[in-house]
């Protein structure tokens, strides 16, 4: 064979075969993949314009607008956009078949899923920091335009808890995306599940207590009520089992066993 005749020194530009990439490197790559496609850029622009609309609109709703309320309202569009991002983080890999190059470079699929989850949580907090950070000067400007006095009573713990709850919802969206591997279906379910449960509560008020255990919105209610009772925590726990833990297990098994083609 000719192989033995070729000295290794003849090889040009040899890059030492690197060690296994660290998890932070994989997380950075997955974070970047959340925002570097055309779809992601369009989604971000829609989120931005909706946020601006919500910000402007909130000044017409109330005369004495509190900063806390303003920050909560202007955070709504971003929270919905982030949910679609959670779904698409996994479904777009399979619909565009970009999963193939991804797993050629990182064959450990569980590691890629973990990195995606971490990137989504980081993205949720980053978006919240940016939206709220821009929200404060926007609020001051709005108050000044209306000739009102600013009301500075922000419940920062509540805002932080809401961001944390949001990152849980993003992970739920991601898990559902893994199970279905169908972006449109998963996005419709994620965005309509809360309204579905409010319809169910109205339709069967006598079952309200049982429904609260199944309702993915229990977590949002927990944060909003800020009473943190044991009963509420139990509801949240059962809800997390149904909407996060089970889909995450089923989805991970599905992706690990899937033939990437």
């Amino acid at each position: 064979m000719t192989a033995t005749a070729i000295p290794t020194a003849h090889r040009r530009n040899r890059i030492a075969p690197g060690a296994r990439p660290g998890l932070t490197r994989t997380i950075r790559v997955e974070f970047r993949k959340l925002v570097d496609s055309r779809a992601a850029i369009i989604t971000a622009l829609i989120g931005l314009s909706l946020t601006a609309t919500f910000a402007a609109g909130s000044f017409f709703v109330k005369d004495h607008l509190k900063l806390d309320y303003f920050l909560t309202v202007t955070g709504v569009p971003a929270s919905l956009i982030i949910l679609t991002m959670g779904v698409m983080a996994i479904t777009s890999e399979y619909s565009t078949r970009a999963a193939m190059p991804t797993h050629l470079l990182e064959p450990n699929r569980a590691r890629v899923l973990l990195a995606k989850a971490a990137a989504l949580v980081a993205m949720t907090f980053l978006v919240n920091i940016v939206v709220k950070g821009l929200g404060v000067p926007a609020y001051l400007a709005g108050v000044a335009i209306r000739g009102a006095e600013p009301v500075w009573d922000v419940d920062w713990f509540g805002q932080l808890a809401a961001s944390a709850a949001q990152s849980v919802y993003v992970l739920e969206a991601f898990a559902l995306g893994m199970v279905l591997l169908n972006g449109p279906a998963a996005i419709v379910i994620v965005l309509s599940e809360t309204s579905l449960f409010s319809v169910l509560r109205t339709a069967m008020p006598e079952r309200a207590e049982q429904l609260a255990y199944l309702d993915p919105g229990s977590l949002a209610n927990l944060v909003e009520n800020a009473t943190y009772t044991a009963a509420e925590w139990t509801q949240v726990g059962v809800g997390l089992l149904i909407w996060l833990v089970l889909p995450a297990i089923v989805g991970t098994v599905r992706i690990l066993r899937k033939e990437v083609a």
Partner: protein
Amino acid sequence: MIEINELTKCYGSGPRQVVAIDRVTFDVEPGTIVGFLGPNGAGKSTTLRILCGLADATSGHALIGGSPYRDLPNPGSTVGALLDASAVHPGRTGIETLKLAAATIGVGRDRVDTVLAAVGLTKAEARRRVSTYSLGMRQRLGIAQALLGDPDVLILDEPANGLDPQGIVWLRRLLRREADAGRTVLLSSHQLHEVEEIADRIVIVGNGRVLAQGAPDELTRGGQSLEDLFLELTINAQRTAA
């Protein structure tokens, strides 16, 4: 070095079981180019997917440098694989696709420029979204990505699809240079003329089995042309299957 030994893949079970590849066995030595030749549906892509850890074998094994693909510490720096040029996010630009791969492998930005130049994609083309690319441009982008980590082994599934005649000549010269530099090159094709001029060895598969393998002059020793041999073998294999 690529070693494929008794590799078998079955889909389904019981009476509906389909054998996609059946005890496929061949090696690719460093410094050589092996052409993996067979008609559509012969099992070439299935073999390459298993070799690259994207699918599991039912039995047998496929090793690169003595280890399964999934055990390679940083596969992009050992193996440059292009299994499907269309399997790329169309909403990203070509250069962004390469930057993501470079970040995953852990090589610098300069490698991105080097491989773009090596495959003949201009800066302006690289800044366009992949959705605007022709198949030939996607092949070039995929080959660029395969070269990014300066790997010892190249595995390319139908890389000539969509390339124009100049592109095919370019690819042939590129792969010859890589092999002459000591790299192990495995490329598949369903077109005989794409591989006969470039491959040091040819492995002919049909209906999931290796039908013949050897250097082109060994295969034609019986006085039969390579084309006649290829057609006879693959048509016979299809007849036996039916």
